[in-house]
């Protein structure tokens, strides 16, 4: 019976229905067919009950801050700083893409937006120092994946809300995992630069570096407020998010003078709409999660796994495959909303740490987004950079391979994910 509902959802998804309908219509159908004794009004109550939560307020605020920074000067100046520091070394433009994507991705939280921004800023220079077309494209697409991992990450806020795990811990773990992934990509850049004899970019003098640092000055306050504020015990993540909006408005308006009243109104409206598109999915997903629990699907999965004598190792492998496939076809938030409710209770039953599980899940979804032939980011890069899908697919393979290695490390060595959160926040 449950298969009819899943089939309905898949048909709607493939036909290109809005995700809110892909989640909402099957949820409503489940209620009407299988739980007809439940009052209809409970359906609405479930949609609203889930999203009325202080933790989730971090999402509109971080989206708003990101919108202001991305459309203004803060993000651009942070990337300028990364470039001045590492851009001049051999293969340095490659490191700039990785570091810049982390800086931009961390403020924008959106992989597609990161591909678009970094692509426009550094793609021509990567080509001019001698990186091949396919390597440059592959690196741009793959680096954007760090946007999901480096804090503040919307994906982690949603995961934390669904599982009741600490957002601060998830952010700290994401920072570590994001850096490991960045390091893996940097090794690929190093090998490629050495193999193909990429030229180094013009030297940047100490003076230019200092200038870039001064240019970035106020922008650097942003990570200080967010990370310093949260881990210094001054703010909760939600408060840090609200304060970062005020900081972004003040800096962009009064220091960089790039934000007038009309632009503020425009950016506020854009941020409000982005918020709505995420929250309506959370609302619909909340109902779906309720039915997943009601139908005792996690218990059935655990029972099945015990029956075939599968341990945590096999379970995690299966989790990797599920999330990877989901990540290829649907957006990160929907993938979480669909797969976390049935699988998370199973993971805890196997004694897997919630933070560790969050890292595995998020890394997988990110990897799904860049995996050919369907990964969403490949198509985004193709349209924003105006390059054929095939050349991006050719370029992205080495990064997918590096990603698989990192994923295996993260999956089977829990301390990689847990070391930083335990160090900063104690056990």
């Amino acid at each position: 019976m449950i298969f009819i509902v899943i089939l309905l959802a898949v048909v709607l998804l493939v036909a290109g229905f809005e995700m809110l309908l892909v989640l909402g219509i099957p949820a409503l159908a489940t209620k009407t067919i299988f739980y007809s004794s439940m009052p209809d009004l409970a359906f609405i109550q479930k949609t609203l009950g889930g999203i009325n939560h202080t933790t989730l307020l971090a999402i509109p605020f971080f989206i708003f801050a990101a919108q202001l920074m991305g459309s203004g000067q803060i993000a651009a100046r942070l990337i300028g700083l990364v470039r001045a520091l590492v851009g001049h070394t051999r293969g340095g433009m490659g490191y700039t893409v990785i570091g810049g994507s982390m800086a931009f991705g961390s403020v924008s939280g959106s992989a597609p937006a990161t591909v678009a921004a970094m692509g426009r800023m550094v793609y021509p220079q990567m080509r001019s120092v001698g990186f091949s077309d396919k390597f440059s494209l592959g690196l741009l697409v793959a680096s954007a994946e760090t946007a999901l991992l480096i804090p503040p990450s919307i994906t982690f806020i949603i995961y934390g809300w669904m599982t009741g795990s600490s957002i601060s811990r998830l952010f700290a773990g994401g920072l570590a995992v994001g850096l490991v992934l960045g390091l893996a990509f940097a090794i690929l850049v190093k090998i490629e630069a050495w193999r193909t004899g990429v030229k180094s970019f013009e030297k940047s003098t100490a003076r230019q570096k200092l200038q870039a640092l001064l240019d970035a000055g106020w922008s650097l306050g942003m990570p200080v407020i967010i990370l310093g504020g949260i881990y210094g015990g001054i703010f909760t993540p939600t408060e840090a998010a609200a304060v970062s909006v005020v900081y972004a408005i003040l800096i962009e308006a009064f220091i960089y003078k790039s934000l007038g009243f009309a632009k503020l109104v425009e950016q506020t409206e854009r941020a409000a709409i982005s918020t709505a598109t995420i929250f309506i999915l959370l609302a619909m997903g909340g109902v779906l999660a309720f039915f997943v629990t009601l139908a005792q699907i996690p218990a059935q999965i655990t029972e099945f796994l015990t029956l075939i004598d599968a341990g945590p190792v096999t379970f995690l492998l299966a989790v990797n495959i599920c999330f990877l496939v989901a990540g290829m076809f649907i957006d990160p938030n929907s993938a979480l909303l669909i797969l976390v409710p049935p699988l998370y209770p199973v993971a805890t039953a196997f004694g897997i740490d919630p933070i560790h599980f969050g890292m595995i899940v998020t890394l997988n979804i990110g990897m799904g987004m860049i995996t050919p032939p369907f990964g969403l980011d490949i198509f985004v890069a193709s349209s924003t950079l105006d390059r054929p899908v095939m050349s991006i697919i050719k370029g992205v393979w080495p990064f997918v391979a590096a990603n698989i290695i990192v994923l295996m490390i993260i999956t089977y060595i829990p301390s990689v994910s847990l070391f930083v959160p335990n160090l900063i926040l104690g056990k």
Partner: protein
Amino acid sequence: MRYLRLAERVFLVTVFLSMVALFTLNVVAREVGGTFASQLAWVDEAVRLMNIFLVFGALGLALEKGRHVGIDTIRESLPHTAKITLRKMIDACGCIFSAYMAYLAFHLVLFVLKTGQQSPTLDLPIGWIYMAPVAGFALLSLRYFLSLISAIDRFDSQENEEEVPAAPGTRS
């Protein structure tokens, strides 16, 4: 339609900026300390309430601007007639689904108001909170309907996402 759109935008911008201001004020008050902070205990609940109205208030505009998430690669690569038929089917389903949700939400408003339940710190009747989905799904249903009768084009005239300025000092 023009006035509805203007009203929606004014509403969203006002609510969002007030949320930021209130929440930040709350943090500042707490850091400064004193009795002022404890008088602001209602802020958390108020901002959560405003967020719900923000979210539902933006549903309609989001559809009109083609901003709702969906996987349209397969649909958009279909031959013309099939593509148009499918788009109309989505509009029809979306219109009916959201109208039904608005209808359910409206009944919930009436039901909860009758129970006389009050919110914890603001002392508002809790039923009013469900006016957000009533309005939001109604606005969404309206947009699906307008798209169905081709009064708005939500598929082909999508906004270009994220304008990104060049980094200072980029030598391009």
